[in-house]
């Protein structure tokens, strides 16, 4: 291991950053020597911080669902209500010549009846939060930066798990694309440099300090996050490239431009650590999508709903959670339709939830056109083993809970019931309704009191007065309820009424009245 390090990465050793990293060396040495093949790239970086910046330049567009048929219609998003200008525009608007930053009036002049939407920072912030939750599956240190529509990830410790920077980058990119976003990704050893590379869509992945210096040097000064005045001043002394700036002595720069410029350089190269706050995911995540136009057909909700459910699945995977219930809010103009769904088994898979929602939505009539969807999670459950399992459940049946869940999704949560016998003596209290997944273990193997006396009746009705019966067969006497104040003494019998029904009746010993309790047949 050591020799390979010496051979391949002498340049790393010579740099101060790598010397710092080698303080953690003993820990690395403890690792077992037999490991799956590692490329030297990951090895050199496995101890030190490595930053991945995800830039989402079109987040405002991605956050709007473009209802399928309208894909060709120009859509622009405007900001700054005092002097409206174009924040972003879709492909069709760009082809007509609209560019971000253009005045709205100019954009309207070249477009034929575009859809115009306002830029809403709050929605952008929500989407970044959702994506930050999703990205928590790659590292524990995630930081969304809403003002810049960017998310920073510290991935130095995740490289070995995800097998190198290239594979990790591809995973992050695919995850975000699948959710409907268009990311630009930059990876570097400092957050500042990662931001820069992501913004520029630069292909280099400098993990070492010298490589970073080489990557940055040819870039023009204008890409640096500096005020325009500073850039002009630097241009004024004949500097064009970052490399020329890096060669200047720091102390003189401080004297001439204050501390801002040297600090930026130090943060870019990693000579001065940059604190990056850690993102904590919300306790009850919520997911939201808005449509570019109002939607009237249920069918058009399915695709955006799938996108929300995929976001949900990824977020749950990141937090190692499952959910059992979900609330879907259809947002209309001014009002909201709330739908809830409860499953009998917790789970997180998007396809399973989508199937259930499809059943539920197919029976819904939209009260008003829908402008957006919101998915709320009432509570998160810790994930156990995957309920669907690698194989089918033990007794060989497939998708057992899904079956009852489908019934409940369509008929309502209280439409699927079981009844459990209780020890109460009165027949109407001798059983309790339970939902399919909660069924108490029967307390005793023997008969319950009510069962012992009145035996094998089959059907129960609420007690209702009945005329005195004809010939009857006595069953027995039940007394009960005196401890709750509902004192009852009843003599039970079975009789046949004129229609031929086998009735299960009782006589109230206090009032002498006959009551129908149910049916024997």
């Amino acid at each position: 291991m050591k020799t390979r390090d010496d051979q391949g990465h002498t340049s790393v050793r010579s740099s101060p950053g790598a010397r710092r990293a080698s303080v953690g060396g003993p820990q690395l040495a403890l690792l077992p020597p037999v490991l799956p093949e590692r490329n030297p790239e990951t090895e050199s970086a496995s101890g030190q911080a490595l930053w991945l910046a995800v830039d989402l330049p079109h987040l405002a567009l991605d956050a709007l669902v473009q209802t399928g048929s309208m894909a060709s219609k120009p859509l622009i998003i405007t900001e700054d209500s005092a002097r409206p200008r174009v924040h972003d525009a879709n492909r069709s608007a760009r082809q007509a010549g609209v560019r971000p930053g253009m005045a709205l009036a100019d954009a309207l002049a070249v477009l034929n009846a575009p859809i115009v939407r306002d830029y809403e920072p709050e929605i952008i912030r929500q989407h970044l939060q959702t994506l930050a939750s999703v990205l928590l599956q790659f590292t524990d240190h995630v930081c969304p930066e809403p003002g810049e529509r960017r998310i920073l990830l510290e991935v130095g410790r995740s490289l070995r798990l995800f097998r190198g920077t290239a594979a990790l980058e591809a995973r992050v990119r695919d995850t975000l694309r699948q959710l409907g976003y268009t990311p630009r990704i930059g990876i570097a050893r400092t957050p500042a440099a990662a931001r820069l590379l992501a913004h520029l869509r630069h292909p280099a992945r400098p993990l070492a300090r010298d490589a970073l210096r080489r990557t940055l040097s040819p870039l023009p000064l204008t890409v640096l996050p500096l005020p325009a005045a500073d850039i002009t001043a630097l241009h004024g002394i004949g500097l064009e490239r970052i490399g020329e700036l890096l060669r200047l002595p720091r102390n003189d720069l401080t004297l001439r431009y204050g501390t801002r410029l040297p600090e930026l350089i130090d943060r870019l190269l990693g000579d001065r650590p940059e604190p990056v706050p850690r993102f904590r995911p919300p306790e009850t995540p919520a997911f939201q999508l808005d449509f570019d136009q109002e939607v009237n057909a249920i069918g058009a909700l399915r695709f955006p709903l799938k996108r929300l459910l995929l976001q949900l699945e990824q977020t749950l995977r990141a937090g190692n959670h499952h959910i059992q219930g979900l609330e879907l809010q259809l947002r209309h103009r001014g009002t909201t339709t709330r739908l809830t769904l409860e499953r009998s088994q917790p789970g997180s898979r998007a396809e399973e939830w989508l199937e259930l929602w499809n059943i539920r939505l197919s029976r819904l009539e939209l009260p008003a056109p829908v402008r957006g969807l919101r998915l709320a999670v009432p509570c998160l459950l810790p994930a156990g083993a995957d309920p669907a399992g690698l194989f089918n459940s033990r007794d060989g049946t497939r998708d057992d809970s899904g079956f009852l869940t489908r019934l409940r999704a369509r008929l309502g949560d209280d439409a699927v019931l079981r009844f459990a016998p209780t020890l109460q003596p009165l027949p109407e209290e001798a059983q309790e309704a339970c939902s399919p997944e909660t069924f108490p273990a029967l307390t005793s193997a023997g008969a319950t009191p009510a069962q012992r006396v009145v035996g094998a009746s089959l059907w129960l009705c609420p007690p209702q007065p009945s005329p005195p019966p004809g010939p009857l067969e006595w069953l027995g006497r039940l007394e009960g309820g005196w401890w709750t104040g509902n004192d009852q003494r009843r003599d039970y019998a079975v009789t046949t009424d004129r229609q031929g029904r086998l009735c299960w009746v009782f006589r109230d010993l206090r009032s002498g009245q006959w009551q129908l309790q149910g049916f024997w047949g």
Partner: protein
Amino acid sequence: MSALEELLAYPGLWRGRGTGTPAATPTRPSGFAQLDRVLRGGWPRGQLTELIGTPFGCGETRMLLPVLAACTRERRRVMLVAPPATPWVPGWRQLGVDPGLVFVIRAASEEDIIWSCEQILRHPKTGALLAWLHGNRSAPLRRLRLAAGAGDACAFLYRPPAAAAQPSPAHLRIRWRADGDQLHLEVIKFTGGRVADDKPVAIRRDDY
């Protein structure tokens, strides 16, 4: 086509190079010797059985209890769809049915009832389905017949008397009528052959 197949399945029809009697439908013993003889072994599995009659509560559920108890002994479910009253499970337990395997499905509209029955019949753990249908229409039953064929549950459909006049895709149709201490069962359709004698089967209601 299906009419022709039904005709070919009729054992009274002699076919020149026929293969003899068609494969027997699997059954579950009904618990009544007389009834088993008429039904050629018991209640058919994987087929629809219609029980036509009124009013509710004459013993038409009780006569099925031996079958239901056998289902729960095999750890298969008994599904009650849209029953007119609440099952009193201590009584079911007394007759050998495990209450943990008895599910009640509450559904109001005909469409929901048929849909639930379809889902239930297709599920492999369903042992028996008891559904109370209000409508006279027989068309939705074709869907149920297909679903029943996908599993091997006993499917009992309770239907009002007016349904007897309608044609139906059910395998077995029985009209029941309470008379004194007996329940008369009259087979009005039995795919695959006439009943040996056309007289109704009488089951004593206090036998069980």
